[in-house]
């Protein structure tokens, strides 16, 4: 019962087979048993969760419960949660208590969800493996010596391990989709501007977007219903009529045109991943879809463009961490400049510093045109590729990542090797278009493989429809990792902040 999907648990709550308090207590016990090995949560708010669960049960008794009332979820620790630590996986904010709720946090709270805790992440969402967190790496629930992906690796691992049925993530270059792929769950990055960025601690503001993690497409649609919506506090939040993202789930796939770019099926894609994607295409054909060849000729440029633009925006956004208004301040310094330099040197980890340096360089005098402007021009070419492709197809399909999850430490000393893991995910952020990852198979070693579905602007309901129909015909999303036996002694934390 505890390990049901959001939709299953909502039905159980509605039928009175379980109360939100019982469900929350049960999942808190699961977290206590398994989090020491996984390190998926950095904060567990038992007291707040039980209070919210009692309120949810009262709302149900009063007849005011909605579809998500009483369902326990977790938030990535980059989203502000009033009264709770919001660390961004960084020493810089290890003791920072958020004074207000992010828009998407408030939306899910208003919908009656029960927040059980905050999840671990790559520091300031910069990473593809969850190894850059100040609080130590998250372990992949399928194999603990493998990474869960990043940067939203804690949320992905928590959902995959059935510690919570749903969670939030944020995706700047693949940080929802790649960990969803590595842990065998679903993750959706909406169209830029669909979810307000208010209270999402900024990494690269023109790319950042929050989105849901869950085990099924249907659950992602339910969460997105509560996360999306216009917010005047974010100037890039789009003002458009509210959508019900579940509306097309049951639509048959007959007539669906699936675009297959040769650029996503070439060298560099692991053979087992390629085979699983081919099998998924065959399944979609059986369901009535037709495959169309499309071209994304600038696809290989997406990673270099991203690693100019995202660090440039990050170097500007992270200049706010100066040891004055919030965050870490060094103990010893000689003057104001020295205080800035030492506070930032101590508060940020190596990858964050690296990206700040890259961003500072590309924006510095004499280099702006050669790097930043050039990258913005190539960004336009990449967005144009998608525009042309969607003239002949409804969705674009391919692997989410070139490989399944890799071992902890395998790429942590080679930033370029790590960045190339984002090759299939960053383009959707550059274009600002929606994309999601769903499970579509396993390697012989037992690691999940993710299928990426991309669509034109505002096609979330269509992506969820394709994913849901695929999940009606397959059972990859029902496979669960075997967790270590209950009540193992807590493993020592790598860092005790």
């Amino acid at each position, binding site marked *: 019962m505890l390990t049901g999907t959001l939709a299953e648990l909502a039905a159980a709550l509605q039928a009175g087979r379980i109360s939100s308090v019982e469900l929350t207590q049960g999942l808190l016990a699961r977290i206590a048993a398994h989090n020491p090995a996984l390190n998926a949560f950095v904060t567990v708010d038992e007291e707040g969760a039980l209070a919210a669960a009692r309120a949810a049960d009262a709302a149900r008794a009063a007849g005011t419960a909605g579809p998500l009332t009483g369902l326990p979820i977790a938030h990535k620790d980059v989203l502000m949660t009033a009264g709770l630590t919001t660390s961004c996986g960084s020493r810089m904010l290890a003791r920072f208590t958020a004074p207000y709720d992010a828009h998407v946090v408030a939306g899910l709270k208003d919908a009656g969800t029960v927040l059980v805790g905050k999840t671990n992440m790559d520091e300031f969402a910069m990473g593809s493996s969850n190894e850059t967190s100040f609080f130590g790496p998250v372990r992949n629930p399928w194999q603990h010596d493998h990474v869960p992906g990043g940067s939203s690796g804690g949320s992905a691992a928590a959902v995959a391990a059935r510690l919570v049925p749903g969670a939030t993530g944020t995706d700047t270059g693949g940080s929802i989709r790649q960990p969803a792929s590595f842990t065998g769950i679903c993750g959706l990055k909406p169209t830029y501007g669909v979810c307000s960025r208010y209270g999402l601690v900024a990494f690269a503001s023109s790319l950042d977007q929050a989105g849901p993690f869950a085990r099924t497409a249907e659950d992602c649609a339910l969460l997105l219903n509560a996360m999306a919506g216009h917010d005047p506090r974010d100037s890039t939040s789009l003002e458009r009529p509210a959508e019900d993202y579940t509306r097309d789930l049951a639509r048959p796939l007959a007539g669906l045109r699936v675009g297959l770019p040769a650029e996503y099926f070439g060298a560099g894609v692991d053979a087992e991943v390629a085979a699983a994607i081919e099998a998924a295409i065959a399944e979609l054909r059986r369901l009535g879809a037709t495959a169309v060849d499309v071209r994304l000729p600038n696809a290989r440029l997406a990673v270099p463009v991203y690693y100019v633009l995202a660090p440039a925006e990050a170097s500007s956004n992270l200049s706010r961490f100066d040891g004055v208004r919030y965050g870490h301040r060094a103990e010893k310094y000689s*003057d104001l400049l020295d205080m800035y330099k030492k506070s930032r040197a101590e508060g940020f980890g190596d990858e964050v510093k690296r990206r700040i340096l890259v961003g500072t360089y590309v924006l510095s005098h004499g280099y702006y045109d050669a790097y930043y402007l050039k990258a913005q021009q190539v960004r336009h070419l990449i967005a144009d590729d998608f525009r042309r492709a969607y003239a002949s197809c409804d969705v674009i399909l391919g692997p989410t990542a070139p490989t399944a999850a890799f071992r902890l430490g395998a790429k942590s000393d080679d930033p370029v090797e790590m960045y190339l893991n984002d090759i299939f995910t960053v383009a959707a952020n550059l274009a600002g278009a929606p994309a999601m990852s769903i499970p579509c198979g396993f390697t012989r070693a037992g690691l999940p493989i993710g299928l990426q579905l991309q669509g034109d602007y505002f096609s979330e309901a269509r992506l969820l429809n394709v994913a849901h129909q695929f999940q009606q015909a397959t059972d990859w999303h029902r496979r669960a990792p075997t967790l270590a036996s209950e009540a193992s002694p807590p493993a020592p934390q790598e860092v005790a902040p």
Partner: protein
Amino acid sequence: MAISRSDVERIAHLARLEIDAGQAEDVRAKLDAIFALIDELNAVDTRGVVPMAHAQDLSLPLRDDVVTEADRHALFQRTAPAVEDGLYLVPKVIE
């Protein structure tokens, strides 16, 4: 473009980051590898291409010029490293 030690020192100063002398060469080498990746963009012909700053082509929204936020400085300053009388404390900057 090869990154030199003096480049690293210059941008670290601009970014207000102290770099440990023992790590400077490792930082330089990794930045050098990242710029080798970025330099692939040099080969792309972008003559006449309009730079794309944002996904949606929107003009910035305007709102009425009135105060909408309550004064919450006490709450916000609770997380500051050093505060006195509602002011943020920093080392002396004027002799």
